[in-house]
């Protein structure tokens, strides 16, 4: 029986991943900000077949909560996998107007994840096994005028995860960077949906498979790997003139 921790369970993608593990009878530790939502999700995952679900209400933006949270994660024995799924999109225009908002995006999406992974990787090194999966974004592959605060936070995260993967590899711990494209979730509810939007359930399946195969990095849906390849090779001289 697997034991999986999911941080930011109220994200639509995270819930779908949790359901896939629940179907296989996994034991789940779920964390999110809102106690009421956690209790709804606990029931849902139990219906899906989770052998056990425990929850922890926490706002990850407050770094001082991290130590006790990670202690709680390991209080019931070793973990097979930790999936970090929380994040904020932020609004580019607002971020440009107000520096605090821009820094908040960086703080939540990058700084707080580093703070958690610092502690989590130590625990995993001690148990000599495990799997760390983090939901990043294709937006971190190249800075674009339309959302570069979000993009920068995810780009920094990608580099951090690369290093961490390198560092943890000898310890038998794998680190997965997940780069979803547009996904139809509450985070993108306000956006007009084109054909590039994927359903959260299908992205979740991709995440589940990538975790189980202990992959290093995955674009979801996979065609985003191609799109981002093209976007990365455009010379900066040209790229800076584009309206992306």
């Amino acid at each position: 029986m697997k034991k999986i921790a999911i941080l930011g369970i109220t994200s639509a993608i995270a819930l779908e991943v949790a359901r896939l593990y629940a179907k296989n009878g996994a034991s789940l530790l779920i964390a999110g900000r809102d106690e009421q939502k956690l209790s709804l999700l606990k029931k849902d995952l139990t219906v899906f077949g989770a052998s056990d679900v425990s929850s922890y209400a926490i706002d990850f933006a407050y770094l001082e909560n991290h130590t006790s949270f990670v202690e709680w994660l390991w209080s019931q024995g070793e973990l097979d996998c930790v999936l970090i799924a929380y994040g904020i999109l932020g609004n580019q225009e607002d971020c440009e107007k107000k520096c605090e908002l821009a820094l908040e995006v960086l703080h939540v999406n990058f700084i707080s994840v580093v703070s958690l992974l610092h502690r989590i990787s130590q625990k995993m090194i001690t148990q000599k096994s495990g799997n760390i999966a983090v939901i990043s974004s294709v937006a971190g592959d190249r800075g674009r005028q339309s959302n570069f605060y979000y993009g920068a936070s995810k780009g920094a995260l990608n580099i951090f995860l690369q290093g961490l993967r390198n560092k943890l590899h000898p310890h038998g711990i794998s680190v997965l960077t997940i780069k979803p494209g547009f996904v139809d979730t509450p985070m993108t509810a306000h956006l007009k949906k084109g054909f590039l939007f994927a359903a959260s359930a299908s992205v979740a399946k991709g995440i589940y498979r990538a975790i189980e195969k202990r992959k290093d990095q995955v674009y979801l849906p996979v065609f985003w790997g191609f799109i981002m390849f093209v976007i990365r090779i455009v010379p900066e001289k040209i790229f800076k003139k584009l309206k992306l």
Partner: protein
Amino acid sequence: MSYDSWGRNYQSTHLIHPIFWKNNIIYPSGPETLLPYGMGRSYGDVCQNPEEWLLPTRGLNRFIHFDREQGVLACEAGVSFDEILSLIVPKGYFLPVTPGTKFVTVGGAIANDIHGKNHHQKGTFGCYVTQFELLRSDGQLLLCSPDENAHLFKATIGGLGLTGLITWAEFKLQKIKGPLIDCETIPFRGLHSFFNLSEESKDYEYTVAWIDSLSLDLHGVFFRGNHAQEKQSLQISKKNLAIPFNFPSWVLNKHLVRCFNTSYSWIHSRRKKHLVSYEPFFYPLDRILNWNKIYGKKGFFQYQCLIPKKDAFNILSEILKLIAKSGLASFLSVLKEFGNISSPGLMSFPREGTTLAMDFSNYDQKTLDLFNELDQIVSSVHGRVYPAKDAHMSSVSFQNFFPEWKEFINFVDPRFSSGFWRRVTGGGL
């Protein structure tokens, strides 16, 4: 994400306020009315609220409780039948009643009090609902069941989403041995044979007939089946075909429909018995996502009426002749005998008798004229037309079909409305 109706027979713009969490729903402020929107599988304007608010409910997609001993399931209103089936079928349960598509939400199933191929034995979905929660626009959160807020319970089942937002519901499931259906297909000719076959198939859990709407002598195929006793399942392809764009309107012409109907009759030209998976039996069209796009930009209509038992034969003969003569109908034409199990729903569509459902390409006035003619015939024998499929009926017809509407308006939430509701109540009340 588009917020069309399935028939796509008219374009409207909406204000959109998606709902995600049932315990902190805040309705948008302002004077515009509200209407819950699930998966948009109703054909006309019962799921449309032009220029005003739609409340997409698919975000309410959590399960709450699954009692595997008693076969009772509780979930939020935006959960789809598709999601329910993939959870319960492996555990030996099935939906008590299902329509011809699994892409409907629980909220939508209640609001339209949907029926299926087992109506003659089981009645409507509403018969199996044990309780639900309703959020009214004044902020009242009401638990509704046959014992508590019983009037609202009855008004909401078949209430077309007008009595408030259903946040979650609990309903009974039926036990099955496995995912297969023991199915028999019988070709037939003439309306008489349909009634005879329906009569002799009363003990089958599921019955339905497909008919060739273009044939004057009425030939068709009768399907009947039971949940099989076998435990095993059949390998079925999970791949879906998607129609990526609107077909040009000339594609779907009379000749193509004739070809389709002839080949469909030919495939089923011999009586046969076989085991099939439940998906192709109940949901043959779900394999083709967006099949509604084959009707092109102008969309299409479905006409579904119910003719009470005593007049069923004569009236249906008349109606079918009229439709065959018009040559306007398309390939999906279905006949089904309803039973006498009454639903708790005040405005529920099914009654004892025979129902006919037919798709029609949108030929504007020509099609609507035919519908008006049909409405008059249906009305003359106290039959009715199904609001979930409707995009045309006049307020006079509606009020004839559903005399209960006068009682129903007492339970309509003052801030809830729909394109359909404004049409059939003549704008103001």
